[in-house]
């Protein structure tokens, strides 16, 4: 047996490779889009993993701390610690802001954690360099993606922090790298007003006769002091004792403390449904459009190539070649084009994935699915050309 399709491809390989590469770049974009979606899901997943929490305690009626802002008093965790089934509980704050180093600024999610090292909820689990935050102030652990180095001094608001450790794959659900700082510093950074605002507030407080009564010293000072500290955190991260039922403990906290509590499964649902869903639909739209465009390209190319061979096809039919052989030739060419395209696309996607600013996760399963879809699209796209070829009248070879 002889493969007509293969021989045609070898003969016109330039044309095939050229269109195959074009198609391949399109397929590469498609695979990358899927990878961006997977990366987002994975970012959300590692966000939850990295928090080290089994339960998230947040302000009542909010979807905090990742999907909505949430504010809790920073001594609530003490009460939570006393409940049965709770092993550890730690305050945490999250705030996306600019972190500077010299001239450079980097957008990052600043996480305020209770110093103490691994095991404490909120603390990064493993470091790739350096050590954990041990001092209560002005130390930071940064994700590798920030580009910061151990020993580097970085600026958050008005304070300088020394980077003492580096982590990896600690990102916000938006893909921003995390910078961990001591909780107290983070609270201050969240709350910090500029000097003018402080001066204005002071002046107004001093001018308030109720707070500045003659003969009652100390009241004004106390009020001013309370205005300059921030007793709020965004959430309390709870680690359960082994064997504790998350739903039971969550129900207890809700009942006793009248707070909102989310389990891991609920948190995952919130991230997926509230934060990722729209982007996922957006990407889904892109995937559909790219699939249609790829199909149109393959159909057009194969159709043109077939029209260029009408005479040969008429001759083949005249001398007794079966329709099946001719249809097979066209189908195989379409599949061949798809194969070239897929190989180019997969290579391109793998090559350029690390250059993307956000995490692009290329799953082998997605590639396999993509391959099947490319092949199906190519097969469908060849139908038009096959129909044209089967309609060719063998008498055309003889002419008038």
């Amino acid at each position: 047996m002889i493969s007509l399709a293969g021989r045609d491809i070898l003969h016109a390989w330039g044309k095939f490779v050229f269109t195959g590469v074009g198609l391949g770049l399109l397929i590469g974009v498609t695979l990358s889009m899927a990878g961006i979606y997977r990366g987002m899901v994975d970012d959300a997943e590692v966000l939850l993993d990295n928090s080290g929490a089994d339960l998230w305690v947040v302000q009542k009626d909010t979807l905090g701390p990742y999907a909505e802002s949430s504010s809790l008093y920073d001594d609530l965790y003490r009460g939570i610690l006393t409940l049965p089934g709770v092993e550890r509980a730690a305050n945490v704050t999250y705030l996306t802001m600019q972190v500077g180093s010299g001239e450079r600024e980097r957008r990052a999610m600043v996480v305020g954690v209770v110093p103490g090292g691994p095991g404490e909820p909120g603390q990064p689990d493993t470091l790739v360099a350096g050590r954990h935050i041990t001092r209560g102030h002005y130390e930071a652990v940064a994700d590798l993606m920030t580009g910061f180095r151990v020993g580097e001094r970085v600026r958050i608001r008005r304070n300088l922090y020394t980077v003492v450790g580096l982590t990896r794959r600690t990102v916000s659900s938006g893909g921003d790298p995390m910078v961990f700082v001591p909780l107290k510093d983070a609270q201050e950074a969240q709350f910090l007003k500029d000097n003018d605002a402080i001066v204005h507030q002071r002046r107004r407080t001093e001018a308030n006769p109720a707070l500045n009564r003659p003969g009652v010293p100390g009241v004004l000072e106390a009020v001013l002091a309370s205005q300059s500290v921030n007793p709020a955190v965004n959430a309390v991260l709870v680690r359960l004792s082994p064997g504790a039922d998350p739903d039971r403990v969550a129900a207890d906290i809700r009942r006793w403390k009248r707070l909102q509590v989310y389990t891991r499964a609920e948190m995952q649902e919130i991230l997926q449904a509230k934060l990722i869903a729209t982007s996922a639909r957006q990407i889904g739209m892109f995937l559909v459009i790219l699939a249609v465009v790829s199909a149109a390209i393959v159909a057009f190319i194969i159709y043109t190539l077939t029209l260029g061979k009408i005479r040969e096809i008429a001759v083949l039919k005249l001398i007794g070649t079966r329709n099946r052989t001719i249809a097979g030739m066209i189908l195989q060419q379409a599949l061949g084009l798809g194969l070239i395209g897929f190989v180019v696309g997969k290579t391109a996607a793998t090559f350029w994935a690390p250059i993307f600013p956000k995490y692009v996760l290329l799953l082998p399963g997605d590639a396999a699915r993509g391959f099947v879809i490319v092949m199906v699209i190519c097969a469908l796209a060849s139908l038009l050309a096959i129909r044209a070829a089967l309609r060719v009248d063998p008498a055309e070879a003889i002419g008038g």
Partner: protein
Amino acid sequence: MAERPAPRPLGSAGVSPASGQDARATGIRIEGLRKRYGSGDTAVDALKGVDMAVAPGEVVGLIGPSGSGKSTLLKCLGAIIEPSAGRMTLGTQTIYEDGWRIPDLRALRRDKIGFVFQAPYLIPFLDVTDNVALLPMLAGRPNAEARQRAHELLGALDVAHRAAAMPSQLSGGEQQRVAIARALINRPPVILADEPTAPLDSQRALAVIGILNRMAQQYQTAIIVVTHDEKIIPTFRRIYQIRDGRTHEEAGEGRALD
């Protein structure tokens, strides 16, 4: 075509009327063949009762003015279009008698009929050998065997030295010889040639006719050549002149070929 010699009476030429033998022994024969295109007011009777018989080993010419029905007759003979009435036999096998008598016309074309066209129409992406060997290879014969047979034919047609070339690298005459080899590969009892010499100069045209004659002898093939070509008409021993849908048999000059 006015200068051709006067028609000789029928019967002296080598039509073998034998029956009960195989196609190679009796060639192709058609009787009272009619073809009507369309129906009603716009119907065209392209063939109005054509009789023709070509013996194995014989090369006959089929000539006639434009619109006389040459191509129509060739398409009927080649089982590409269906006649409207009459009878066609190939050897002892009746292939048409008021309807097709065999189910698989494609197989008939593949196994029993070779085609040579005005242009060679070689498959551009196959080399010369595979162009010739294509049919048996597609039919599932071992590639080596098919190519071996192709080489023998290419040798017989003096193009063996171009066996590895692509069609685009051949001259017009070489391409036409490869096309003839392709038509011969399945050793068909009949070859239909449609203006095979039209694009060739007189020397090459005569060479192609010489080859067809030699192949007819060598493989005992009945060959029908449709032509307008004044250069080659004198080479036929027997000519069918078709006029207004009917054939008239004439003796040709049968001029010797070197």
